[in-house]
C-alpha cells in the first residue's frame, strides 16, 4: 500500500504583510503577544513538527484561536506558510507550482468544513459531485459515484433536495459525501462535527470510524473537544498559541499530561474508557483462569471483574497467549487517579 503519511517540518506562519521579516525574532523566542504589540503581526504557527501516520486518524486539538485551522490549511496550502515544509510522498507541498497544487488538491485531498460550506444553489447530489466534476469527469460517472457515497452516509432519497432544506447533521453528511466522492487519500476535517448537537455528533463519529475501517485514509481531524479527540484519534497533537505542546496517543496524553494546561484538559476525561489494560498490567495475576484481551479498556475490565466476582485476570494477546496480569485494585487505582501537576 502507498505511504500516505504527511510530514510537517519546522512550519511557521506569521500573519501580516511582512511575516518573513519576523521569523528570526520568533525563532529567538519572541512571544505571540510581543509580536502583536511590537510589530502588529499575528503569530499563527510556531515551529510545528508532526508526523501524521499513513492511513490513520491524526487529531489536532486545542482551544479556539490556538492555530488549528491555520495548521490544517497548510496541508492543502489554502494558507501560504512563512517558513517550513509539508512533505507528502517526497514532495514539499509548500514548493508546488500553481498547476501542481491544483492537481494535488483535486486528486489527493478532500476537505470537510465546520460550517459545511455547501453550494446553496446546488442540490444535494450536485453538491456531492462538485469535487469530481471539477476534475472533468463525465456527468453519468459523477452521478454514479455521488449516489454511492450519499447512500453510504445515509442520505439516499435526499439527492434532489437543496442544502437549506436539510438539518445541520444532514448537511454535514453531504459535506462528508462530497469529500469521500473525491476518492482522495488525504481527508482534512476542520472541526467538521463541532457545529452539531451531541447525539448527532456521536453518530457522525461512528460513521467516520466505520468508513475508516475499510477506507484507510490519512485523516487529519481538528477538534476542540477532548472526548472526540480520544474517540477518533490514533494520534493526537495538542496546540496552544500556535505551538505543539504535546503529541502522542490518547492514552499517553491522559496518563502523562505534559503540563498544567493539558492536565486541566484531561481532568474531566473518563479514564476508564481511554486507558487500556496493557498500560497498567504487571506480572501479578498472569496465571489466573479468567482472561481479558489485550487492548480492552479498563472500564470493561472492571465490568468483567464485577460480573465474574474474580479479583485477578490474565491479559492475553490475539493468539490467546498470556502477556501479563491485572488485578481489580490496579484497575480501580488507574481509573480514579488523575495525573497531577
Amino acid at each position, binding site marked *: 500500500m502507498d505511504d500516505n503519511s504527511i510530514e510537517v517540518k519546522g512550519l511557521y506562519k506569521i500573519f501580516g504583510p511582512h511575516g518573513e521579516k519576523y521569523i528570526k525574532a520568533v525563532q529567538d523566542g519572541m512571544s505571540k503577544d510581543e509580536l502583536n504589540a511590537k510589530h502588529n503581526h499575528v503569530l499563527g504557527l510556531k515551529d510545528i513538527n508532526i508526523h501524521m501516520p499513513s492511513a490513520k486518524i491524526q487529531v489536532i486539538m486545542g482551544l479556539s484561536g490556538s492555530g488549528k485551522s491555520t495548521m490544517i490549511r497548510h496541508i*492543502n496550502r*489554502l494558507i501560504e506558510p512563512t517558513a517550513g515544509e509539508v512533505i507528502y510522498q517526497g514532495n514539499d507541498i509548500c514548493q508546488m507550482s500553481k498547476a501542481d497544487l*491544483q*492537481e*494535488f*488538491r*483535486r*486528486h489527493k*485531498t*478532500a*476537505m470537510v*468544513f465546520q*460550517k459545511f*460550506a*455547501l*453550494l*446553496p*444553489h446546488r442540490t444535494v447530489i450536485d453538491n456531492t459531485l*462538485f*469535487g469530481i*466534476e*471539477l*476534475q472533468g469527469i463525465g456527468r453519468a460517472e459523477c452521478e454514479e459515484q455521488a449516489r454511492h457515497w450519499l447512500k453510504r452516509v445515509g442520505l439516499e432519497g435526499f439527492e434532489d433536495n*437543496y442544502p*437549506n*432544506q*436539510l*438539518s*445541520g447533521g444532514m448537511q454535514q453528511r453531504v459535506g462528508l459525501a*462530497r469529500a469521500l466522492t*473525491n476518492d482522495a487519500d488525504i481527508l*482534512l476535517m476542520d472541526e467538521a462535527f463541532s457545529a452539531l448537537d451531541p447525539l448527532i455528533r456521536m453518530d457522525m463519529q461512528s460513521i467516520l470510524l466505520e468508513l475508516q475501517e475499510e477506507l484507510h485514509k490519512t485523516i487529519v481531524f481538528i477538534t476542540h473537544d477532548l472526548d472526540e479527540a480520544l474517540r477518533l484519534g490514533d494520534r493526537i497533537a495538542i496546540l496552544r498559541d500556535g505551538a505543539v505542546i504535546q503529541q502522542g496517543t490518547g492514552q499517553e496524553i491522559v496518563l502523562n499530561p505534559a503540563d498544567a494546561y493539558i492536565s486541566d484538559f484531561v481532568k474531566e476525561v473518563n479514564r476508564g474508557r481511554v486507558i487500556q489494560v496493557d498500560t497498567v498490567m504487571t506480572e501479578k495475576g498472569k496465571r489466573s483462569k479468567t482472561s481479558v484481551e489485550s487492548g480492552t479498556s479498563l472500564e470493561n475490565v472492571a465490568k468483567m471483574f464485577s460480573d465474574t466476582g474474580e479479583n485477578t485476570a490474565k491479559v492475553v494477546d490475539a493468539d490467546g497467549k498470556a502477556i501479563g496480569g491485572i488485578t481489580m485494585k490496579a484497575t480501580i487505582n488507574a481509573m480514579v487517579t488523575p495525573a497531577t501537576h
Partner: protein
Amino acid sequence: MMGLKDVLPDVMTEFPEMGRADIRDFKKGIDGAFKDFVREYGELIEGFFYPLKIFLSWFERLLVATPWPLMIIIFAVLVWLGARSWVIVVGTILASLLIGYLGMWEDMMKTLALISVSTFVCIAVGIPIGILMSKSDRMQSIIVPILDFMQTIPAFVYLIPVMMLLGIGKAPGLIAVCIYAMPPVIRLTDLGIRLVDKDVLEAADAFGASPSQKMFRVQLPLALPNLFAGVNQTIMMALAMVVVASLIGAQGLGSNVLKAVNNQYLTLGIMNGSAIVAIAIVFDRVSQKFGKRLQKHSETVHG
C-alpha cells in the same frame, strides 16, 4: 449703513474670473479638439456601432411586421415563463390590447425593440465589467467614480458628444440609453460576486477549482439574484430614458411624448406616457417574480 462689501477688498467681492476672452478660447479649444477628433475618428466609431444599428433596425422591423395577435401570444408566453402568474399574464394582454386600440401599437413595438436591444447591450458589456471590478480592488476604485459620474450627470449633457459623434438617429439613441442604463448591472454584478460566502469559495479552492471554474460554477450562480436585481434596474432606467433619447432620434413612444411636449398636446402626452408606464410595470413585475424564483433554493424548510 455700511455693508460688508464696502469694507472688503475687491478680490473678495468680485469673483476672480478667468478673462472673458480666455474662457471663450478655452471652450473653443476643447470643442475644436473634440470636433477634430470626430472628423478623424467619427467614421471609425460609426463603423464600430454600425452592426448595433443594423441589429436594432432588424429587430424593430421584425416586431412591427409580426401580426399583432401572434405578438400578443408571444408576450403572454414570455410573461408566463418569467412570472408564472396568471394575473400578470392577463394584465399584459389587456394592456397591449388597449395600447393597440389607442393607435400606439407600432410605437410600442419600436420602444420594445429599443429597450430589448439596449438591455441586451447593457448585460453583454456590463457583466464582464462587473466581473473585472469584483476581481480587483484597484479596478473597483477606478470604475466606481465613473459610474457615479454617469449616474449623476444630467442625461442631456452626454447627448451632446454622442450626437456629435454619431449624429441623429437610432444608433445614437440606443447608445445614449445604454450609457444611462448600464451602471446598475455593473454595480450589482460586482456587489453580488463580492458578497459570495467566503467559506464556499474556500471549499471551491480546497477541491481544486480553477479561477474560471470558480467564477462560472460558484461566484456567478451565487451572485445571480443580485445580478438580476441589477438587470431589473437597468430595464427601468432604459425605459425612463426613452423620452430623452428621442431628442436625438430614438423612435417610438418616447418621440410621441416629445412631440406632445413641444406642441402642448395633452392627450397624446398622457396616452404615450401611460403606455411607457404600463410597459415598465409589466417588465418590473415579471423580472421581480423571476428574480424571486432564482432564489428559491434559499427557502428554509427546517432547522
